């Protein structure tokens, strides 16, 4: 078992910067801690979000990859989020998406709800779980220099690839994503979520690329 007491940690912003400078035409699904800073700094017409269905980011991205194997998909996931749908590791591994990068920000807490600990923190490893599930590659980083140095090579590996980043909690509270739903009039269909406005743009961007 890993000695977690010796781990360093990576700031979310530095990890996102390393990813953003390699961004081309990938579809990116972001959720939880990484979502807001990613959207604020690196959003394009190929960004999807996972809000209101915690744990769904990786299989949402998997669907895009299975529809468009020619377009790489990155998923920016959270530890508490992935813990809610651990079976998704099997679903992803079984589908064997070749251009699928699953980044898990492992900060050890439910950051936006008050830093309650993620279960079995200090005992469990998403890297080992992904390997056991059948991911093609799974690796953990706890310093930004090693992550940044390895990333180019990892992006060339036939996936699915999981990268577990030992990261620092941000301490930020949850904020409704841009364009999110507000209170709706009684008796009417609830207003659409922010995702409803986002995904057609990604669909159109992908369709244009296929022509």
């Amino acid at each position, binding site marked *: 078992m890993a000695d977690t007491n010796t781990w360093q940690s990576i700031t979310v912003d530095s990890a996102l910067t390393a990813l953003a400078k390699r961004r081309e035409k990938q*579809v990116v699904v972001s959720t939880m801690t990484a979502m807001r800073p990613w959207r604020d700094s690196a959003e394009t017409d190929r960004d*999807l979000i*996972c*809000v*209101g*269905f915690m*744990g*769904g*980011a990786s*299989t*949402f*991205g*998997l*669907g*895009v*990859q*299975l*529809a*468009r194997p020619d*377009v790489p998909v990155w998923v920016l996931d959270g530890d508490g989020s992935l813990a809610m*749908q651990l*079976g*998704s590791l*099997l*679903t992803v591994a*079984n*589908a064997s998406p070749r251009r699928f990068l699953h980044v898990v920000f492992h900060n050890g807490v439910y950051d936006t709800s008050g830093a309650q600990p993620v279960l079995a923190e200090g005992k469990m490893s998403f890297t080992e779980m992904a390997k056991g599930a059948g991911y093609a590659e799974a690796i953990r980083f706890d310093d930004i220099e090693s992550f940044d140095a390895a990333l180019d090579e990892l992006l060339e590996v036939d996936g699915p690839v999981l990268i577990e980043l030992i990261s620092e909690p941000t301490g930020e509270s949850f904020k409704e994503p841009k364009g999110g*739903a507000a209170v709706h009039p009684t008796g009417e*269909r*609830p207003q*659409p*979520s922010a*995702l*409803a406005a986002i*995904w057609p743009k*990604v*669909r159109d961007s*992908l*369709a244009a690329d*296929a022509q």
Partner: protein
Amino acid sequence: MPTAEAIQAQLFLNAIQAAGVTDIVAVPDTHQRSLIELLDCTGEPRFIQTATEDEAVALAAGLIVGGRRPIVQIQHAGLYACVNHLRGIADDGRFPMVFLIGLLGRDPNLLPGEHGGSMVRLAQPLLDIFDVAHFLLDSPADLDKLTGAFEVAESRQGPVALLVGVMTN
């Protein structure tokens, strides 16, 4: 009193193909076993299995983003398990998503709402609460509702459920 009939798997598959379905995203369902077996060996449409119904909904949404036309194939117990993803993705996210939901244990001589047990009886009320349009597939003649379900899903920009009333054969 209704007398629902089983739908033969091959007829079901023909209707699915005629509706232009590209992918079946499924958690195995005893009620639709013969159809699943046929889909799995036919390969057209593509059969994609997930570990949970939550994942099936999220994966189908991703397929739609990528331009595909999937169906989510689950059982009523799976519907109860995935209501938050049904709400959070398919409904609030305005995804035109069609579901095939097996009513395992349904007595073909009763309407679903007439059942004493909760598994069959509560499926339609639950869908009503979540504002999901739904239709019963109670005989081969109902298979034309497949294409209609996609039309409704597109016009409403939301989920539509087809309830498979009798175990497929």
